[in-house]
């Protein structure tokens, strides 16, 4: 029966690869579709065609931060599609309670658990971190007016470590004999993940996943070192610490967190691999004990959630004021709260372990710090709201996504504060409530901010406009879908539905179906998004001004658009074409504001 699911997944993956191939084939002449900003044809100072080789070779050899940013972005979106496909299979399974050993759709709980594990790992490590790196690579050097990243070659190496990482992480799903995908869930708790006892987690599929994770961690650490060096030393003379933009601040803080979090995870992964294969005692009862894994994992894991959320907060802080018609309210406090979160995030890890029987005094102090960390988060939220207060809002797609971010972040944050309280957590731990909480943040906030960024900078990167109607449809499908899916999960948790199960009692059926319907909306929205981006990239209307969002009017323009304008002028002077523009709230035809 499991074969059905495997088959389904294989077919879907095949369809995806086919789609990519078709797209690549359509763009057979890579040179003529090069994004405006990416060098090559639109030469500056007479370097026409001399900076980069043509064709696909350019992408394998590039050391240009903008190209590498695009590579990261493509990689992240492919991972997003893979991880999304996995979870759609799970949600489809959960349409029925299937209260018997063979599930209705996926065949076996084993396969469900494999999808669950891979979905989490894929979304956090192969989509989340890379999509942020995509924005940071493309934009930070432009915004701080640097030539490039501090170490352009290390930048490229860091990216090229990711594809083999993904292959190892997904290897369990490939048709390799006797290799089964890991079913440890993304937290990889010992002793299950150490492969001891009954069950099949001593299978080498788990080792492959751990190796792949380690590799992506190395990549993230190299990237972080590069960003720290870049922001410290590559700023142009006019960019001082006092006027450093909010996005770069969040990237700097995030890089600091990565620097201490990811290598520790790396060590823990190696220790786990040694336990599994060479008989060491790091996480063995009577040695370091299984609880040591939880401490090391969450000492990484909690900072990791802020590694994922700080830069999206930076994007929102950067983009939202542009469409609110005023400067970011309380800029300084947004920066300070970023730094405060960065420091505090290393002091809250045990709030994931309240129910493990750790010392109650420890529990109490971790509860206090966890409640405290909500304060800087709230400071930011109030700053976003006050920025919009009395502003002249322009409800463009990026702005809608920013507002969606704030609204979802509030629900995600408030549910988090409840979890931080020990007695509440003892009731809700390991229920769907927790799943609802963090998906409000990872999907409702982080991914929404990513979308705000993609739509906002789409003209900057491609010189073209996305299709406005499709973009708005995407937003509304996602806003409704996110809240349907994840609010249903919050309620499921209140009802006592435990997380990580392929079956459930019949009384949970209604809420589970609502969640699946919501997920279907997300899926449709995702399809629209991919279609919109792919087609607009190739044939969208060209941007007709150097200030497509019309920021100059309110004096809200930023450095990357000045760069864009300059690029555009040289390109036009070289005989670039110009067409009618259908903007999204920009200058030409103000849309539905």
């Amino acid at each position, binding site marked *: 029966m499991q074969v059905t699911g495997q088959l389904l997944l294989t077919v879907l993956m095949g369809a995806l690869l086919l789609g990519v191939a078709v797209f690549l084939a359509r763009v057979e002449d890579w040179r003529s579709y090069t994004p405006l900003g990416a060098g090559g044809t639109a030469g*500056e*100072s*007479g*370097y026409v065609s*001399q*900076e*980069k*080789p043509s064709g696909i070779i350019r992408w*394998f*050899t*590039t*050391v240009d931060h903008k190209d590498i940013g695009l590579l990261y972005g493509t990689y992240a979106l492919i991972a997003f599609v893979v991880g999304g496909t996995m979870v759609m299979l799970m949600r489809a399974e959960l349409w029925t309670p299937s209260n018997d050993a063979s599930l209705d759709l996926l065949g076996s709980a084993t396969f469900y658990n494999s999808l669950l594990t891979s979905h989490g790992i894929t979304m956090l490590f192969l989509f989340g971190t890379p999509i942020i790196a995509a924005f940071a690579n493309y934009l930070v050097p432009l915004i701080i007016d640097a*030539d*490039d990243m*501090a*170490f*352009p*070659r290390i930048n*490229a*190496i860091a990216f*090229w*470590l990711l*594809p*083999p*990482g993904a*292959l*190892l992480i997904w*290897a369990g799903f490939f048709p390799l004999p006797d*290799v089964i995908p890991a079913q440890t869930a993304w937290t990889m708790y010992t002793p299950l993940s150490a492969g001891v006892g009954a069950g099949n987690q001593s299978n*080498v599929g788990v*080792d*492959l996943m751990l*190796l792949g994770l380690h*590799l992506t961690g190395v990549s993230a650490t190299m990237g*972080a*070192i590069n960003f*720290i*060096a870049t922001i*410290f*030393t*590559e700023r142009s003379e006019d960019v001082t610490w006092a006027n450093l933009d909010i996005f770069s601040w969040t990237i700097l803080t995030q890089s600091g967190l990565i*620097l*201490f979090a*990811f*290598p*520790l995870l*790396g*060590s*823990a992964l190696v*220790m786990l691999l*040694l336990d599994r*294969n060479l008989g*060491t*005692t*790091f996480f063995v009862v*009577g*040695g*370091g*004990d299984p609880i*040591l894994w939880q401490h090391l994992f969450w000492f990484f894991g909690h900072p990791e959630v802020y590694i994922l959320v700080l830069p999206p907060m930076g994007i929102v802080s950067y983009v939202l004021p542009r469409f609110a018609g005023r400067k970011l309210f309380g800029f300084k406090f947004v920066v300070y709260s970023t730094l405060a979160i960065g420091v505090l995030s290393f002091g809250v890890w045990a709030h994931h372990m309240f129910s493990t029987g750790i010392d109650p005094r420890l529990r109490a102090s971790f509860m206090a710090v966890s409640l405290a960390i909500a304060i800087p988060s709230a400071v930011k939220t109030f700053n976003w709201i006050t920025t919009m207060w009395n502003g002249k809002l322009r409800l463009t797609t990026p702005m809608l996504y920013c507002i969606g971010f704030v609204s979802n972040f509030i629900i995600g944050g408030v549910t988090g504060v409840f979890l931080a309280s020990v007695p509440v957590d003892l009731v809700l731990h390991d229920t769907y409530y927790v799943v609802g909480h963090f998906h409000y943040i990872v999907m409702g906030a982080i991914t929404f901010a990513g979308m705000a960024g993609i739509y906002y900078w789409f003209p900057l990167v491609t010189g073209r406009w996305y299709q406005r109607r499709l973009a708005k449809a995407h937003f509304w499908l996602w806003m409704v879908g996110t809240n349907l899916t994840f609010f249903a999960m919050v309620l499921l948790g209140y009802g006592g539905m435990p997380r990580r199960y392929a079956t459930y009692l019949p009384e949970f059926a209604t809420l589970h179906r609502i969640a699946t319907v919501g997920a279907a909306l997300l899926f449709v929205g995702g399809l629209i998004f991919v279609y919109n981006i792919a087609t607009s990239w190739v044939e969208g209307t060209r941007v007709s001004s150097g200030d497509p969002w019309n920021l100059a009017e309110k004096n809200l323009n930023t450095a990357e658009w000045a760069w864009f304008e300059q690029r555009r002028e040289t390109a036009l002077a070289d005989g670039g074409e110009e067409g009618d523009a259908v903007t999204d709230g920009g200058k030409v035809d103000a849309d539905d504001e």
Partner: protein
Amino acid sequence: MATETEDAHDEGHHLPAVEDWPRGFGEASWWPFVTAAGAGGIYVGVALFLMGFGDTNIVPVVYGQATLVGAVGLFLVGLYGWLYHAFVSHFWQRGTDEHSASKLQWGMIAFLGSEVATFSGGFVYFFFIRSGPSWPPGELPPLLGSLVLINTAILIASSVTLHLAHGAIRKNNRGRFIGLLGLTLLLGIVFIGGQVYEYYEFIAHEGFTLTTGIIGSAFYGLTGLHGLHVTMGAVLLGIVFVRSLLGQYSADRHVSVTTASMYWHFVDAVWILLVVVLYVGAEIGGGAV
């Protein structure tokens, strides 16, 4: 990690990789791709090895071994190309502004920060078992012998000689610089030899191995990780040494001497911590009680 070039600038336009293969382009280089393919290949090799290891037997073990050898080779080729074009070639034509020096130093500082986190995993394990109910393990080999004391003295001495070498190149005293640098490298290699000898003694004569109780994991985990770092430090110093023999470096051109010594001093400091925490910490109240 190591260091990166002062990039080429032309009419204010940034061209970081003019020298690299493929030639003739300013922003294209195969080296990162080759290096990353090698590094990724190492992981794939380990994965294949584990697939053939023990009673898993999914693929023959040689697949893994062959992939590992090939991947390490590829990795080294990529690394060589990258480091050579980034730092070594056209050494004297490069600018020497403070800016490129400070960027390399910040890179190294950040890298060392990440190293703190790497080491702390093993240390935390040791603290866990040291304060846990399974302590004392009752089966300790003689950790605090004369060997570790001599080895510690050697490593500290190497930090001193490296510091003096650094001072010498600042004063443009090349002869003294090369001599002291060579001495440092020698001391580093002697230290590694000492560690190997200690492993040999423990494994062959004391029967103390990686799987000897809870302390074996801590001992070999931590000293092994540290040994890898000393080895890498020695490789870095070796590169600097060879370059100095080729006549590179001067009073105002020695960034990689600075970054390599930051790394070396760091590894030295970790060793002292390791001796205090692991060797001394395990002996006190640890041995056959």
